[in-house]
């Protein structure tokens, strides 16, 4: 038999890797013998396959477990000894151990909380079947001057993609019919009425895309036809209690349109980009049918499911090419010119966005169906949590190496009696892993505490349900051990390298690690300072947002919603409410600043300038109630019927039409929805009617009684300082006198404006919390290091005192090096924070300038904390009688 040919080399390598050496030769021999036989009979290729297969068959417990003696490098009896010594060490150095323990526990808790939060954010929409083939169609944002993308599309799109693009398997549409007053006439109990905001309408194939489990009814026909609605279980409970909901009739809106409940689904998961209590059939909203020709009625969200293997880029290109004639046709029908309309917005294009990415990647694109998050914030929080953990790990490394001298005798003795470097390294690794595990246990109550705090004061709720699954749980436990190992690496390398001869000889001080220690302390200072100055800057911006002069009087304004429900009584409601005590003025308008976004295209007589302008219908009291200033002309007048033909524009509109405020007066505006060309009678000074993320946009006021679009009404009431409670109570009483059936819904304008910045406020609070925690951990570490230094230099301090040194000079002596490190840390932190905060501020059209002061304040705060703590520590050393410390030996 020939021996020249050998089977696959990596098969042999694999075998050598797992097979115990004492068995290897005979096993290999047997396998080779079989291989040779096979090769003779069946050829080389087959023999090789068979050989590999047989090698794999040897990868079994009966073989691998015979490695046990070799794999069990961590001798069980030694492990017991390691743990014993570890615990003794903890007890002897109780203070230091506590510093490590608490620091690590806080670090781990922060990491875990933010990991869970991130996981929750990233889990949005990942559970829909075929999620990798689900997309939303976005289109060019035709309503913005600058173009860009947005997630809203028009009614005909879904049918068109279904027919014209074979790569798209299915398409469905969702529409937002808006808040409805929904009424249920209970037999013998009178009607039950709620104003419902979580209301959507969808095509009948919606449940093919998002198959939520049905409790009653069936998904196939629940949304087929007119006047049908699917409700969630808790909504059904709210209206019908325990009774079955299927087939019950609800009354919709003022018209009391009867709608039949055609299905009940389980309550929806929270981690989705949309939410609803009511899902109407699309045909229930007549507007959608009415606009089925229009490509600019962008009140629809279109979802598609692509065919398996379809290319997104191809579909994008096809959509943009095929539908361009359609959008042109729509514009033609409206008498608009495509090039004019798209000026500055680029071509009118379409693209797919994966449904999974909607939640975190829709900044700018938006989501018609609910709030979205921001991947940037998720990434920032991930980074910050790692930094906090890093600070805690640095404490561990620094305290272990700084205290190496105390362990050096132990190490020397162990080495002399034959402990290997591996043994010693195991000892130190055991210490660090055990410390981390203890810290993880301590972190559990911390997590609960911090989660409650975050939920209460920041408004972010975090769920930990996932840890009940095996894999994440193992991951977390693994990470804890991994972090322990990581923390122990440097100390164990450093400590095991100590030479017995130097350390046993009463050895001189070793300072090898102090260089690294200084670097690490600097890193800690830098991180803490970056976080602290960052949170100060964010706080300044948030404060600026709430203080900035918006050009109108935002204080003391009560907004009563759904006022259109009072219909003909609305005017007298306003007149009554003004008469109440403590009320200065009241106005009826379509909306209030902060919520205005009804854009349309306007032009003017005598020019072909076309601009998109926000429109608002207001009554004559709007300008005084809001404290607006007129730049030229006048506002609407009470009882002036002619004002129905007049408009008021803001300065920006005038400027874009090429007028000064004075020139604008008596000019005529052209609006496609109006036959007459209304005359400008006034120009209102610019005010921030949108959030401060935006520059002031063009705005036009129409008279409230003008019978064009916009049924919605609010009443805004200006009340006297400190009269909020009383005003709300009085207004509520008055409202009930007008219509006790309708729910009274109100808000305070200033609160509502503040809500515009909720997401950034949350970010600010998170950064502040993290900066406090990081400072806490870093200061703990500093206390440990300094008190150790003082311990070491007790004798020196004593001698200096005897020789007449002042307390101040000794304080300086100890602090000198830390102050230096602190300043270096500050220098490192500044550019990092500066650029990060600058990026964040860029989202705002109105923002503060970053100034040095924040950094100086942050530095001063942290420095004061550190110095005062160190001062307390040193005081004890200073007060001690020098005799005691000097004669110790």
């Amino acid at each position: 038999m020939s021996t020249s040919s050998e089977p696959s080399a990596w098969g042999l390598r694999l075998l050598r890797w797992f097979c115990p050496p004492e068995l290897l030769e005979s096993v290999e021999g047997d396998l080779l013998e079989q291989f040779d036989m096979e090769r003779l009979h069946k050829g080389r290729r087959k023999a090789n396959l068979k050989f590999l297969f047989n090698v794999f068959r040897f990868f079994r417990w009966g073989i691998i477990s015979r490695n046990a003696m070799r794999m069990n490098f961590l001798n069980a009896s030694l492990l017991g000894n390691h743990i014993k010594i570890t615990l003794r060490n903890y007890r002897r150095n109780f203070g230091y151990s506590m510093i490590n323990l608490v620091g690590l526990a806080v670090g781990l808790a922060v990491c875990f909380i933010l990991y869970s939060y991130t996981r929750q954010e990233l889990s949005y929409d990942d559970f829909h079947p075929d999620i990798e083939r689900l997309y939303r169609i976005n289109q060019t944002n035709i309503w913005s001057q600058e173009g860009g993308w947005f997630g809203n599309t028009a009614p005909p799109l879904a049918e068109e993609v279904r027919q014209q693009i074979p790569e798209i398997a299915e398409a469905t549409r969702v529409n937002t019919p808006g808040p409805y007053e929904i009424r249920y006439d209970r037999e013998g109990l009178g009607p039950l009425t709620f104003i419902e905001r979580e209301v959507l309408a969808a095509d009948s194939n919606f449940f093919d895309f998002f198959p939520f489990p049905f409790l009653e009814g069936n998904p196939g026909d629940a949304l087929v036809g007119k006047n049908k609605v699917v409700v969630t279980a808790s909504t059904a409970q709210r209206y019908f209690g325990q009774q079955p909901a299927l087939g019950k009739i609800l009354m919709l809106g003022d018209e009391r349109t009867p709608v039949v409940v055609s299905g009940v689904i389980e309550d929806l998961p929270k981690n989705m980009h949309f939410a609803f209590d009511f899902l109407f059939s699309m045909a229930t909203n007549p507007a959608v049918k009415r606009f089925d020709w229009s490509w600019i009625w962008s009140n629809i969200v279109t979802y598609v499911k692509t065919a398996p293997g379809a290319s997104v880029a191809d579909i994008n290109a096809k959509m943009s090419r095929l539908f361009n004639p359609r959008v042109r046709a729509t514009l033609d029908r409206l008498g608009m010119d495509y090039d004019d309309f798209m000026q500055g917005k680029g071509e009118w294009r379409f693209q797919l966005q994966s449904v999974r990415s909607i939640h975190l990647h829709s900044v700018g694109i938006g989501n018609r169906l609910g709030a979205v998050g921001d991947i940037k914030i998720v990434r920032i929080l991930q980074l910050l949590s790692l930094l906090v953990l890093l600070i805690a790990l640095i404490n561990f490394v620094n305290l272990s190496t700084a205290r190496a001298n105390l362990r050096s005798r132990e190490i020397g003795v162990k080495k002399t009696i034959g402990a290997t470097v591996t043994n010693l390294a195991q000892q130190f690794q055991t210490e660090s892993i055990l410390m981390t595990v203890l810290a993880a246990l301590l972190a559990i109550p911390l997590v609960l505490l911090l989660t409650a705090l975050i939920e209460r004061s920041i408004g972010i709720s975090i769920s930990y349900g996932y840890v009940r699954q095996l894999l994440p749980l193992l991951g977390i436990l693994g990470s804890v051990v991994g972090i322990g190992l990581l923390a122990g690496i440097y100390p164990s390398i450093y400590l095991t390298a100590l030479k017995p001869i130097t350390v046993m000889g009463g050895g001189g001080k070793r300072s090898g690690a102090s260089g690294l220690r200084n670097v690490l302390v600097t890193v800690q200072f830098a991180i803490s300072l970056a976080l602290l100055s960052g949170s100060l800057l964010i706080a300044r911006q948030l404060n600026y947002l709430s203080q900035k002069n918006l050009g109108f009087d935002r204080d003391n304004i009560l907004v009563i919603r759904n006022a259109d429900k009072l219909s003909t009584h609305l005017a007298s409601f306003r007149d009554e409410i003004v008469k109440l005590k403590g009320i200065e003025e009241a106005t009826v308008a379509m909306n209030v600043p902060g919520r205005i976004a009804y854009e349309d295209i306007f032009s003017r007589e005598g020019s072909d300038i076309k601009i998109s302008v926000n429109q608002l219908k207001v009554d004559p009291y709007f300008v005084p109630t809001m404290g607006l200033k007129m730049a030229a002309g006048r506002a609407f007048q009470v009882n002036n019927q002619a004002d129905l033909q007049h408009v008021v524009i803001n300065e920006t509109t005038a400027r874009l039409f090429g007028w000064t405020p004075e020139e604008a007066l008596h000019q005529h505006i052209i609006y496609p929805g109006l036959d007459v060309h209304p005359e400008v009678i006034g120009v209102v000074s610019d005010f921030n009617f949108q959030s401060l993320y935006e520059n002031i946009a063009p705005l036009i006021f129409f008279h409230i009684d003008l019978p064009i679009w916009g049924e919605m009404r609010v009443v805004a009431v200006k009340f006297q300082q400190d009269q909020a409670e009383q005003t709300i109570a009085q207004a509520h009483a008055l409202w009930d006198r007008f219509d006790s059936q309708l729910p009274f819904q109100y808000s305070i304008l200033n609160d509502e404006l503040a809500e515009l910045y909720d997401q950034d406020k949350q970010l600010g609070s998170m950064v502040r919390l993290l900066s406090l925690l990081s400072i806490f951990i870093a200061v703990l570490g500093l206390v440990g290091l300094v008190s150790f230094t003082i311990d070491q230099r007790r004798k020196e301090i004593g001698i200096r005192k005897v020789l007449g040194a002042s307390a101040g000079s000794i304080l300086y002596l100890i602090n000198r090096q830390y102050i230096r490190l602190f300043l270096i840390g500050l220098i490192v932190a500044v550019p990092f924070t500066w650029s990060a905060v600058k990026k964040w501020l860029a989202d705002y059209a109105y923002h503060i300038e970053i100034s040095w002061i924040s950094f100086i304040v942050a530095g001063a705060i942290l420095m004061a904390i550190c110095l005062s703590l160190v001062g307390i520590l040193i005081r004890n050393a200073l007060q001690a009688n020098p005799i005691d410390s000097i004669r110790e030996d």
Partner: protein
Amino acid sequence: MQIDQLGHFEEQVLTMVAILGDEAYGNAIVESFQDQLGKSVNLSSVHVTLYRLEDKGLVKSRMGGATNARGGRRKRIFTISNAGLAALQLLKSSREQLWKLLPQLKFSI
């Protein structure tokens, strides 16, 4: 030696070791399974079983001499120990004892 602790496959491998005498090693046992019982077994199962039998003290092993075949790798030769022989005998006698207690059935063929 508790005979209960000897599985069926173990018993078969042990018997093969006894049959093959000085020629009992992994592949030889696989082959004699094929020849004697017409049964195809995997080499790794045989190896694992042999090691287990060795742990139980029923077989002994030594390395054979080097040859040119097998890529120069030596064979591990297994021989049955006295305890192994005793175990086989015990198994056989206990089985026969039980067999005798069986009611004498007439098999109709």
